[in-house]
Each structure stands twice: as structure tokens, then as C-alpha cells.
């Protein structure tokens, strides 16, 4: 039973532990599969599924078709293949959702931690958050786009420029909730004895934050992240709708959804596909978040 002279055990890689717990979370695996499928689909899909090249006249004759072998998801009001458009749209939407969410989360967590950990920064940073919360979003985005679109576009091209701008715009207007939650957690964590213990060892604030505080704010951040993806994808569609988003010939799920609304009654599948894609993304991110949260918490992992 007891074997004091046990051969020295290598520290098990925490990643492997986390992974094995993650794997045992059915929802998380489901989420990972779905999200993985979506990502793979939009990444390599456009190469695998090359829609027929049709002239406008031909395409128009095929408009608003239901799903068929030729057009697995049907066609839109201009006779464009929906599958092809969904795949292209997914690339942008997924990228926007993930990147903008990441920006918001990173930003929010950073500010939350700084505010919670360093007393002096607390007041100013939280007032900043208040201010951002109170700012009217749409004029803010309009101003940002007006000021920076051309400049960024001339640097890195219109599409990438639009992407950068949108992602940043969404990111920096949605970090506040995260930062508040994180700050609250940090304030209590900071007084925990293990944090004091770390201080007594002389651990630098940076490492205290990274090792002791950050892992413990993961779970609220995960919730925020889940919401963030959905929010970002939808905000992107609103931006496109206001003409602030991508060039109009770049489909995104949000835009397809919005466009499809007009046809919802006649051709419901037009909204079903993008709606489904967005929901699936959000759902899978949520489940992954759940799984990750459990996997990162050794107390739960033990079960």
C-alpha cells in the first residue's frame, strides 16, 4: 500500500490531466467536435465545395431553390449557392467571433485583474469601465470606423482592414462586463491565504497573478467568453447592416441571417442555415467553456 521508496514519479503533465478530464465531459467533447467540424468546414470547405460557375442569367433562373444535390442548402434570391456562401461566411463570422471575444476577454481580464490587485488602479480603471458602459455604442463605432477605416485599409488592404477594425471595435466595446466580474473575484482572491503565502515566499506580483489569481477567475471568464462569441457574431451583423462592416460582397452569417429575414416566410431555410450555424457555434463554445472550467478545477476533476 504505502511505498515510501516509490520510484520517483515524474510530475504528470497538467495538460494531460486537464485533457483527460475534459474528455470525460460529454458536452465538452460534443462542443469541441461541433466547433471543430465548423472550423474545418469553413477552412477547407470552400476548396472541397466549389459552387458551379454560372452566369448571372443562368443563376437567376435557379434562384430561391430548396436544398437539392446540386445545391445542398439551396440558393438565394440571386441564385447563388447557399452552401458556398455559408462556408465563406463562416470563415469571417467564426474569425470575428473568436478574435473579438478573445480581445474582449483578454482586455477585460487584464483590466479586472489590475483593478482588483493594485489598489491604486482600482478607482481609475473602474471609472473607465463605467464610462465605456455609458457610451452610446453605435456613434462610437461610427466614429472609430470613420477615423480609422481608410488608414487601416491603406495599410493592410480593405478586407483585412475591415476585419481588424471590426474585431477591435467589438473587442474594446465589450470588455467591461468581464472586467467587473474579474475584479470582484480578484478582490476576494487577493485576501486568500494562499495568495498571502505566495507573497511570503517572495513571489512577484506578476507570477502571483498568473499562477494564483488567473486560474481562479477562469470560470466566470468562461461564461463571459461564451456570451462574447455570440455577441461578437451578432454585433458584426449589425455593423454590416449599418455599413460599417465588411464590403458588401463578403457574406457573414450575421448578414446572411439578416438578409434572409425578408424571405423568412417564403423560404424559411434562408434564415435557418445561418441561424443554426450561429447557434451551434455559441452552443459548442459554451459546452467547451463548461468542460474547460471543470477540467481546470482540480476539485471537480477529482470526481
Amino acid at each position, binding site marked *: 500500500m*504505502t511505498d*515510501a521508496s516509490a520510484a520517483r514519479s515524474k510530475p504528470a503533465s497538467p495538460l494531460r490531466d486537464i485533457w483527460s478530464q475534459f474528455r470525460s465531459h460529454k458536452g465538452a467533447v460534443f462542443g469541441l467536435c461541433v466547433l471543430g467540424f465548423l472550423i474545418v468546414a469553413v477552412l477547407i470547405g470552400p476548396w472541397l465545395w466549389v459552387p458551379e460557375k454560372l452566369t448571372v442569367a443562368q443563376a437567376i433562373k435557379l434562384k430561391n431553390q430548396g436544398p437539392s444535390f446540386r445545391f445542398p442548402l439551396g440558393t438565394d434570391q440571386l441564385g447563388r449557392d447557399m452552401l458556398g456562401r455559408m462556408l465563406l461566411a463562416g470563415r469571417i463570422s467564426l474569425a470575428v467571433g473568436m478574435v473579438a471575444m478573445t480581445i474582449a476577454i483578454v482586455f477585460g481580464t487584464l483590466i479586472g485583474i489590475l483593478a482588483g490587485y493594485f489598489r491604486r488602479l482600482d478607482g481609475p480603471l473602474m471609472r473607465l469601465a463605467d464610462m465605456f458602459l455609458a457610451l452610446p455604442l453605435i456613434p462610437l463605432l461610427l466614429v472609430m470606423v470613420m477615423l480609422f477605416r481608410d488608414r487601416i485599409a491603406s495599410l493592410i488592404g480593405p478586407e483585412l482592414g475591415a476585419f481588424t477594425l471590426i474585431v477591435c471595435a467589438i473587442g474594446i466595446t465589450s470588455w467591461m462586463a468581464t472586467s467587473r466580474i474579474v475584479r470582484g473575484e480578484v478582490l476576494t482572491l487577493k485576501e486568500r491565504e494562499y495568495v498571502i503565502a505566495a507573497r511570503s515566499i517572495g513571489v512577484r506580483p506578476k507570477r502571483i497573478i498568473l499562477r494564483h489569481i488567473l486560474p481562479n477567475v477562469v470560470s466566470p471568464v468562461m461564461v463571459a467568453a461564451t456570451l462574447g462569441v455570440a455577441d461578437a457574431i451578432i454585433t458584426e451583423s449589425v455593423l454590416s447592416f449599418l455599413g460599417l462592416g465588411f464590403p458588401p460582397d463578403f457574406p457573414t452569417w450575421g448578414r446572411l441571417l439578416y438578409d434572409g429575414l425578408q424571405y423568412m416566410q417564403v423560404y424559411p431555410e434562408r434564415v435557418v442555415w445561418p441561424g443554426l450555424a450561429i447557434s451551434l457555434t455559441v452552443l459548442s463554445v459554451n459546452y467547451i467553456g463548461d468542460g474547460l472550467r471543470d477540467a481546470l478545477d482540480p476539485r471537480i476533476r477529482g470526481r
Partner: protein
Amino acid sequence: MPDGALPVLDVRGLKTVFRTRGGEVHAVNSVSFMLRPGELLGVVGESGSGKSVTMMSLIGLLPSPPAEVRAGQVMLGDRDLLKIGPRALQDVRGAKVGFVFQDPMTSLNPVFTVGSQIMEPLMRHMGMNRAEARKRATELLALVGIPDAQKRLKAYPHQFSGGMRQRVMIAIALACDPDVLIADEPTTALDVTIQAQIIELVKDLRQKLGMAIIWITHDLGVIAGIADRVMVMYGGQVVEQAPVAELFADPRHPYTRALLKTIPSLTGERGARLQVIEGQPPIMTAEPVACPFRARCAHAFARCEAENPQRRAVDDRPVGLGHDVACHWSPEGV
């Protein structure tokens, strides 16, 4: 203590396991003991020896999953608590069996007043209305020695010191005049002057109310002061059980013997070094087939590897009532 009185609590062959990622943890293995009316049973044993798990298993307080009570019988009067189902168990908890936990800081609900937390079981089990319950709660607070009880009912737990909170816990446990009071290290988190107050209180209450008490502790000093009988646990098993004086005078199990030697005394000779029990507590990942203490035991021999010793009586009193020990070795020779 009338030896022949029927036990209020009779536990037989209790087995509890935890299902964990690393396999099952057999935290409690075939634990049997009985508790007679008015008796104070002290339970000592190493940290992790299964004291808390045993007691919580009795009245279904372990979260399931991961815990699972595998086998056994817990007779409270003539009912088997493991069989009566969750509803009936609720009627037992708090009413027939009171529980006091170790950490008074976190064991009280921070958002309810002390009074309402004491009144809750009164209204639940005794069918009292608010006014009656409040009256009784005031009495209880006074009983556990909190002055100005009437006013203190309205206070919140954070406004009480640790000792006072533990008194509140005791008041809650005593509220419905339980037959059995289980105190799981009730004074460990407190310091000595307060511990002394609490111990005096419990002694006092026991005299007044006459219930049976199970008192879990690390502190053999505390046991010596209050217990009638002592049960020593090791590795999820009961290794020795005896009336308190006999145990201190004539410990039979090597673990008990070692334990008694490790304690520094306040008044006696001050040795240069404390006696220690070498080695490590066992990892209980499988059903034990050998003696759990064998690795640390000075007297271990071949049989200890092969067979998990059964409890046997040291004298002619039956196992569980007199002095018994679970060991293949005996001081008189095998």
C-alpha cells in the same frame, strides 16, 4: 453507565467508498460500534482515518456521488438508517441525531440570523410555531452560555466570535433533544481557554440532558477529560475500543500504544524528543486484505501481511462493550 442497557445507536459493518478519478477510495471499512444511552464515546485516530466519513455516513450527509455507502447497518433504536429512505432520514437528522461540525466559521449560514438558524429545526421537527421556537431558541442560547440571549438571536454569525459560533452550533444540535449528538472535532478550531469553556459546557449539558455523545477529536487530552469510552480508528477501521481509563492504562493496539507515547505533556517529564510513529498512513484504494498498520508497526509479522485482523475481545466482555482490539499481536504474546 448500565452495561446492559440497549444501545441507542448500533453500527455494524459500515463500508463507505468514494469513487474518484484515481479509482475507489475505501474510506470506511467494516466499522462497527455501539453507543449506549447517556454515554460519551470518544473517537480518535489519525487524520484521514475515516472518522468524519463514518459519522457522516450514518445519517446520509455525504454527497453522493462521489460517496457510496456499500454495506452495513445503522440501527438507531429499532430502525436501520441506511434503509429508511431520504425522507425518513431527514426526520432523524437534527431530531434524533444532532451534529456539530469542526469549523464554526463556515458552518453557519452567513445570511440568516443566529436565531432563525436555531429555530429552523425546532419548527421542522418539533412542530413549534415561531413564537414557541423563538422562546426555545432563547433558552438554548442561554443554555450554551451566551449572555443576553434574547438580543443575540437577532445577530448574524459574523458578529459572533469563533467560540460563540461553536456554541450556536451546539445549540442547534441540541435543539430537538436528540438521542445522539455527534461532535466532529468541535474544538479543534478554537483555542484552549475557549475549548475549556466548550468542554465544560458539554459536560454540563450532558449531565442535564443525558444524551449519548460521539466526540471526534485528535486531542487525547480532551478525550481523557470527557469520554466514557474511546474508539481508536486507523485506515478506515476500528483498531481498538475500550473504556477510557482502560485504554489509557492498558493500550493493546500498537498504534494506540504509539499514539499515547507521542503526546507531550504539560506537567510530566519533558523528553528531548517526541516519540513518533514512523511511516505514512495507508492509501486506501482497495479493499484491505492485510492489516493497514503493518507497514508502521513495530510488531508486524507474517500474518499481518496475509490477513486483516478481526476485532477480538481482550477480556470476557463481548466485542463492542468492553475492551477489544483488532490486532494479531498481543502484549502477552501471540
